């Protein structure tokens, strides 16, 4: 038997590795611009699948369905919100509302939509190519030759072979019709005739002007005639711009390298007044009279290695200084109402702090949550968007916060 061993050896020993590579990807379906415009209307309500930014205006909630359009939710009774309509807007990511006009992007284009009757909206103005940086569609040109990506078809494919990374790489770099979504900031948006959006917004309205940020610019739109926005000045910023938050006569712009403060005393021409630099990370920002609150988090798009809340003293805007940092898990959007500070801390849920003393913020309540990423506070109600739904909590009694309702994400 022992003699047989060497003979057996070569046949009996083998290291083998087999690789199965499966890819699910999407190919774009193009429609003509006229066809897309004709489809921009109120349609039957749809199930929320991939929620983006939220915007609150009177009794209505406008919830972006990433890259698809906008859900209109009648929130007259926060305990029983009703999804009443859906507006088809391909490539939509950001929203803002003034009066009865809803502003929304359609890839690189800007729409002004009359929402006087949310169930019968009317497209008032369509402006081409005001956001050129958004003329993409997950790797494919979003608007090209008069056509717009209006839908996507899901494709699945798989390859099997010996373990060789080239299977993967070949498919990635062979020019196959495989489109990867350009990374985007996580969802979310920004308040009387103007509504209220979240801290993750890239559109923000202050009186007769709408300010939008791209990854490296601040654009001004004059909306004194709401249904007819007029593009104004453009301010070049550093790369990595993520969010915009208005407070008083200032805009607080969050970027992945710091917070920039712009004075809008002259609303047509924002003027840089100060900045606060931090390590590279994603950073939504909010502010009040005296302090700015910046959440820093790590992430694929943001790099960085820290997760924390920075409280920044604003008594001298030209010399904004860090007051104190508080460790967090993966902080995203945030909101402040009086002394209460709400922070969406990713998978750690929503944390509510007593921020009466900025240098000694104390945790009051921790709501277990499934991946929360933005929050809006209004009328003692916290509207929280997470991966699994849109939640509304009453915090009339901060020590007894109650869930009022949830709109499921399917």
């Amino acid at each position, binding site marked *: 038997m022992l003699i047989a061993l060497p003979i057996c050896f070569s046949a*009996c020993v*083998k290291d083998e590795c*087999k*690789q199965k590579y499966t890819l699910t990807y999407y190919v774009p379906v193009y429609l003509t611009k006229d066809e897309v415009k004709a489809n921009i209307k109120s349609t039957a309500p749809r199930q929320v699948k991939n929620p983006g930014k939220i915007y609150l205006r009177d009794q209505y909630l406008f919830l972006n369905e*990433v890259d698809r359009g906008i859900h209109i939710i009648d929130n007259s009774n926060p305990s029983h919100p009703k999804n009443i309509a859906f507006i088809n807007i391909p490539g939509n*990511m950001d929203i803002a509302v003034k009066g009865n006009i809803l502003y929304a992007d359609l890839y690189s284009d800007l729409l002004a939509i009359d929402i006087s009757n949310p169930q019968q909206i009317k497209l008032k103005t369509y402006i081409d190519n005001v956001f050129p940086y958004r003329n993409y569609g997950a790797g494919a040109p979003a608007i090209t030759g008069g056509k717009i990506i209006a839908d996507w078809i899901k494709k699945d494919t798989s390859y099997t072979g010996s*373990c060789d990374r080239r299977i993967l790489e070949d498919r990635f770099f062979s020019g196959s019709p495989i489109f990867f979504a350009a990374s985007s900031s996580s*969802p979310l948006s920004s308040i009387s005739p103007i509504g209220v959006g979240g801290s993750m917004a890239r559109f923000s309205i202050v009186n007769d002007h709408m300010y939008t940020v791209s990854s490296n610019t601040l654009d001004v739109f004059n909306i004194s005639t709401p249904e007819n926005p007029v593009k104004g000045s453009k301010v070049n910023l550093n790369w990595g711009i993520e969010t915009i938050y208005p407070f008083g006569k200032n805009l607080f712009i969050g970027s992945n390298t710091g917070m920039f403060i712009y004075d809008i005393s002259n609303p047509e021409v924002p003027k840089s007044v100060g900045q606060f630099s931090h390590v590279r990370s994603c950073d939504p920002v909010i502010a009040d009279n005296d302090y700015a609150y910046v959440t820093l988090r790590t*992430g694929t798009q943001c790099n960085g290695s820290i997760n924390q809340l920075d409280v920044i003293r604003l008594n001298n805007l030209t010399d904004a200084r860090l007051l104190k940092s508080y460790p967090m898990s993966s902080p995203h959007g945030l909101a402040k109402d009086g002394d209460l500070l709400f922070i969406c801390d990713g998978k750690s849920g929503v944390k509510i702090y007593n921020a009466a003393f900025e240098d000694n913020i104390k945790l009051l309540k921790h709501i277990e949550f499934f991946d929360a990423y933005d929050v809006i506070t209004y009328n003692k109600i916290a509207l929280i968007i997470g991966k699994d739904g849109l939640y509304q909590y009453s915090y009339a009694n901060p020590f007894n916060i109650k869930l009022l309702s949830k709109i499921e994400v399917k």
Partner: protein
Amino acid sequence: MFLPLFCLGQPKGKGKAGFHSIIGGGAMIGESKTKAFFQYSGGLEYDRYFTGIGVGYDAYRLNTIPVFADWRMNFGPHRVLFVYANVGASFAANIQKEEKTDYSRGFSRGGLYTDGGFGYRLPLGHSQRLSLSVGHSFKSITNVHEFSYGSVLPGRTTSTNAYRYNYSRIVVKTGWEFGK
């Protein structure tokens, strides 16, 4: 798992089933490496048969924990020769190894584990034996890496790479048997 150890020294009548333990270890000789392993089996021995369950640690290429059913038959003069067969599953040794981010997930899936061969048992007295065996072992385990890209699509683009590793090895094993 180690309950059988406490059964040592319990008197058993001839022809009755008795608890039996085997602690073994040795080398896995494969195509590219030779690696150590160890294992423990506990079960019942009746007449010339042993049937039990075992667990071990197999460091060949990928660290795995085999969990298996162990069967063996003793034969020959004084039943000093034996054949054995183990069949079960291999699992990743570090179950904390699963890695997850917003965009990727990596984890391992268990696979088949077999070991079969023959050997010789040297009596040591006091119902103890030293065994020496040679056999063939196979283990399979799958590492899966899932990636997803972006969030602006109706659904994310996802890719999954599943690497299935199959390892066939010669096993040279020594064991300490006790319990009957």
